[in-house]
């Protein structure tokens, strides 16, 4: 499937999505309230984007952005989905019932960026200790013992 065909397919699923095909892969921006439904549709396909190979978040200082890298396990279609979140109250629906690998990755994004994933079965800290304060991967995080910044 070419990028143009994918854009038509995506806009058919979600007219509110914006696309950018200038890079190596197609980048799709989806509004946060439409994300869950959109995720279920692209997982079903065709082409079934059933392999979530990277899930991460980025702090853009004005807002947070969750980035999903998806590809099909049978064909080579790859897509990057970005969802913008409010920085003061970042909330998004979980997708770990669709791609089960998201469970761990979402827990990591939760503790590092403070993003709440609704309906996540077990949203606790995974890497950091339970009594740790702050979200270390955010840009305004000040490391109290100055060990990370060189």
């Amino acid at each position, binding site marked *: 499937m070419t990028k143009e065909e994918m854009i038509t397919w995506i806009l058919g699923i979600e007219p509110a999505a914006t696309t950018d095909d200038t*890079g*190596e*892969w197609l980048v799709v921006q989806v509004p946060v309230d439409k994300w869950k439904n959109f995720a279920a549709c692209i997982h079903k396909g065709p082409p079934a984007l*059933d*392999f*979530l*190979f*990277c899930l*991460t978040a*980025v*702090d853009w200082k004005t807002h947070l952005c969750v*980035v999903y*890298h998806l590809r099909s*396990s049978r064909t*080579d279609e790859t897509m990057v989905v970005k969802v913008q979140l409010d920085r003061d109250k970042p909330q998004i629906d979980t997708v770990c019932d669709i*791609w*089960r*690998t998201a*469970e*761990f*990755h979402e827990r990591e994004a939760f503790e590092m960026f403070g993003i709440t994933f609704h309906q996540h079965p077990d949203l606790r800290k*995974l*890497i*950091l*200790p*339970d*009594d740790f304060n702050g979200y*270390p*991967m955010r840009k305004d995080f000040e490391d109290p013992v100055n060990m*990370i*910044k*060189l």
Partner: protein
Amino acid sequence: MYAETQIISSSENNPQLKEGQLVINVGPQHPATHGVLHLVITLEGETIVKIEPHLGYIHRSIEKMSESLSYRQFIYVTSRMDYLSAHINNLGCALCVEKGMQIEVPARAQAIRIIMSELTRIASHELWIGAMAMDLGAMTPFFYTFRERETINDIMEQTCGARLTMNYMVPGGVMYDLHPEFVTRVRAFITQFKDKVTELEDLVTNNIIFRNRTEGIGILSKEDAISFGCTGPVARASGVDGDIRKRFPYTGYEQLDFEQCLHQAGDSFARYIVRIREMYQSIRIIEQLIDQIPEGDFQAKTKAVIKLPKGEFYTRVETARGELGVYIISEGGTTPYRIKYRSPGFSNLSALDHMARGSKIGDLMATMGTLDLVIPDIDR
């Protein structure tokens, strides 16, 4: 929190447990976890009900550190992630920088990179077989595998100056040219490997105890492997053809003749056999290159200070454990704005609970051992 975790708690003092269930802790200091992994296991009799991994004992925040390091420096930190695939981690980062800068890598450097990557893969698999067999109670294979691994380490030491965290890949090529004895020693290693690997196969592959303990244990279906984001030998043992070297070739793998090792069974023994066959394929790749390493530069000319253009770059490489993704977001400065390492072990570990549920606690070591977990890679 960890201090107050009890060694064994019964259902009487833990209301979340049902009648007859108990919780045991494996790790953080346990010989079979090969690092500081902490598993909290809920048992019903001998049957595993739930496994909860607790991570972070050696979390060094490499992603945050990389944000304040230059594009030449951050590569060296990644050797400390999956220390058994140090070359391949470095390669993934170097490729990402090269992609952003559009640097053309000389043919000699590409050949050296592939040979080094495959030697690393063999060394990593050798160590894994030794350690895994030891987890299951076999002591001898450990010495056999370390003999071969030692030869590779000596070869690495001669050219790179280090035996474990090599830091040999740089943006644009490799750091130094090969040692004059490199080719002879690698050829000698190939002969030695082919001769000695049969010993290992006799000792482990055809061992009835080993087979009984691994066959049909820790089964991961193809659908689950995809859903859990498993990559590398773990996914290939379940029939997922996701070898990055084949599907999305990089640094010249597309010109080489090798097979992707697939297995359909998805059990612990399949994961073992996939790794054994992968070592043979790695030898096949090295044999194709070792006699015809192109002459020429080993490093492209690059600027002293690298500034990546504004944008996002993602590269993936096949480490000994699976797919390593390097995601760089650049704002045009001398340091990255954000780096994410998609480590293979992190996703593979997430499948452990699913794989081990319902099996006996004694089989956990066979299941966990064949996942080939390297904890610094998971924690980062």
